[in-house]
């Protein structure tokens, strides 16, 4: 069970971060279908940096510090890349879905291109040693062995960063002037503009912040599940979009949605670890459980979306370019 929860966290946390990334963009009024590409860019910047630094032994004794720098770089890479979306969607008022698609294409191509260009043997894979970042602490192992396993032994710093991002996002959206104005720009930009709020600026901040979080999410996703990054994040950006819709653009509900999907996803890779599932599999040799468990997260999300989408709470002006008249 502890193994299962620890595995699901590897899925839940990046989904949470990236869905929140999407939330900031959509709350400000820009549909962000480029989350996938932002993740790729973030993961590329982060893993490439780690790869090079680990090769020269930089910060070998302070791996968590190295990870923090890598995360920041991932975020900056994502933010820079999201400015392409911002320019297209906010200044050029172009179709945001097309723009997002172009950015996804570009990110995938660029990540592979750069990796092949700057690595030996034109290798696509950027490998890294993730074990260096694992906490492997046992300080609660005597009292709560399971909790220790999940939160201190197998965990990475990214788990806590994800939770901090969730808390900060919640506070920013509900308690601050910035959050309230940001939502106003995505709900009714004319109203925001009529009280002197610079809609363009808030939409830019929303998109850049979205890029920053999306980039971080990319690295957070790539780090624990593999030993190398190959220029793709396996459709997680799009899944995060589904999580965002399922979570109705509210931070805490997004968290619940991420947990929901993450648990199912983890089940698809860890179901063999459960004795009772193994027993069922043995009882029914002809049922393709592997396939069923792989499909389950997607089916479950579809069902939930079908139930919850009728009363969609999407920001009303999201996806609609804002045009300040009269100039």
């Amino acid at each position, binding site marked *: 069970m502890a193994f299962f929860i620890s595995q699901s966290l590897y899925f839940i946390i990046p989904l949470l971060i990236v869905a929140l990334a999407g939330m900031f963009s959509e709350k400000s009024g820009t549909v962000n279908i480029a989350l996938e590409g932002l993740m790729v860019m973030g993961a590329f910047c982060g893993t490439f940096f780690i790869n090079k630094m680990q090769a020269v032994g930089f910060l070998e004794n302070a791996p968590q510090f190295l990870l923090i720098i890598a995360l920041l770089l991932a975020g900056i890479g994502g933010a820079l890349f999201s400015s392409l979306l911002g320019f297209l969607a906010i200044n050029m008022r172009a179709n945001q879905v097309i723009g997002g698609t172009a950015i996804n294409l570009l990110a995938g191509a660029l990540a592979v291109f750069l990796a092949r260009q700057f690595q030996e043997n034109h290798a696509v894979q950027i490998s890294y040693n993730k074990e260096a970042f694992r906490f492997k602490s046992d300080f609660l192992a005597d009292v709560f062995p399971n909790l220790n396993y999940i939160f201190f032994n197998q965990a990475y710093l990214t788990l806590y960063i994800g939770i901090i991002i969730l808390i900060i996002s919640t506070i920013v959206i509900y308690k*601050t*002037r910035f959050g*309230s104005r940001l*939502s106003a720009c995505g*709900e*009714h930009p*004319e*109203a925001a503009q*009529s009280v002197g709020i610079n809609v363009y600026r808030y939409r830019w901040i929303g998109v850049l912040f979205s890029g920053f979080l999306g980039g971080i999410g990319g690295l957070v996703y790539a780090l624990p599940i593999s030993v190398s990054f190959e220029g793709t994040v396996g459709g997680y950006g799009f899944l995060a979009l589904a999580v965002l819709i399922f979570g109705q653009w509210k931070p805490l509900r997004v968290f619940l949605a991420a947990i929901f999907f993450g648990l199912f996803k983890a089940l698809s890779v860890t179901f063999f670890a459960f004795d009772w599932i193994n027993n069922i599999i043995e009882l029914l040799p002809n049922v393709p459980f592997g396939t069923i468990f792989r499909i389950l997260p997607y089916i479950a999300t579809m069902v939930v979306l079908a139930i919850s989408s009728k009363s969609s709470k999407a920001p009303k002006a999201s996806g609609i370019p804002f045009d300040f*008249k009269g100039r």
Partner: protein
Amino acid sequence: MQKIIEMRDICKQFPGILANNHVNFDLRKGEIHALLGENGAGKSTLMSILFGIYLPTSGQILKNGEPIEINSPNDANNYGIGMVHQHFKLVEVFTILDNIIMGVEPNKFGFVKRNQAKKEIEDLCKQYDLSVDLNSIVQDVSVNMQQRTEILKMLYRHNDILIFDEPTAVLTPQEIKQLLNTMKFLTKQGKSIIFITHKLDEIMEVCDRVTVLRRGNVIGTVETKNTTKEDLSRMMVGRDVIFNIEKKPAKLGDIILEVNDLTVVSERTKKNVVDHVSFRVREGEIVCIAGVDGNGQSELGQALSGLIKTNSGEIILKGVDVTHKSIRFRNDNGMSNVPEDRHKHGLILADTLGNNLALKKYHLKPFQNHGLIKTKPIYDLAKKLIENFDIRSGEGFKARMGALSGGNQQKAIIAREIDKDSSLFLSIQTVRGLDVGAVEFAHNKIIEERDKGKAVLLISFELDEVMDVSDRILVMYEGKIVKNVLAKDITVEELGLYMAGVKKDTVFPDKISQPYTPNEETQEEMTNE
């Protein structure tokens, strides 16, 4: 008296139209100054310039005699200018409190201090006798309260020059009275008010002066006490306006539309927005459903046209139960429908005018053959309608629909629906956004249809329209029909009482629309003529 605001020689050029042509306007401290004019006369443009939404092409604005520059609503706000827009600028999913403080949030390190704001606003509410529920979400409260929210927004910003852009269009007569009182009270507290309207009665009641605009030009500024309604209307339109449209008495025929016990439940609130409504419409009469916006008329109209599902009851069109029939069936079997929202439902703005004029016909012969579209008949139809209904477009039927002005877009819809030659003409907010001339044109066309023996059902939020064209009036209040009366038997004031829910009758649908029933005196008068 002191001129608090003066606008000198303002010009505003839009592509293809001169919206303001050397306009001069001034506002004195403590007065209510009406800005009168038809739609498109340039009132809103002038005020948008004052409020910093538009920059003037040329001209000068002075406050207290000193020139100022207003480049954005922020600047306007800094000079103490606030505005209640015709379409409220409120974020519907926010609380009233958040809407009032938006843009000027009291805060500490970026964290909004809502409690402090709440106290301040509650004081304002007391001072100006305006009651709102600060914690309610805007989309859940009445239009009336939304308007008070907008007023509080200005007061919270300590604005002393208040612009009201057609504030009474969405209110009942009683609510209008209340608003006008509030406005008078505000001027007593030292505020100065600019009141944009085209309702002459309201001007005569509260305003000190009136500036009349026509086609971007100032026709004149007069003291209210030295003028009359007739003079003002002549200044506004440039000719004598017939306040009562001439029409022949109605000749009733068979029942065309029969609505029995119709109920529509709102998906959001789960309440009956249309609540067991029954009525009839006969050939040769214009029935008008009056009421304040938001009392279920829109939903009733959508249910009749098939856009939303009904929960119980039946709709019978020419003897056929169409309650569960498709929209296309209704379209093809005798229902014409001018929808309430022309951009959402009425037109495909990205398509051409020609295709829009054929929107409800291209699936029928001769516009198609074996599923293939034939362009020639479509173009011929378009040319005919453009000519007959005087639809003005730069490039004829090939013009993109979105490029036409609002008035011409509405004309295109009216043309299309009248051309369908249906037995029922259902029209919701027919004349919204049309100028006086176009309104007259549309009303005459509708009366023409009636005289041809069509059944006409109008849904209107404008009392003037209701009184002008209808033969019979049904008043809707909170989803129910609370009055069924012949137009000539009721006064505007009494109608207002029903619209506000102060008076209610038990309405029997059959009694009044039954022709030739000897014991119904009213019917005698109507049909004998």
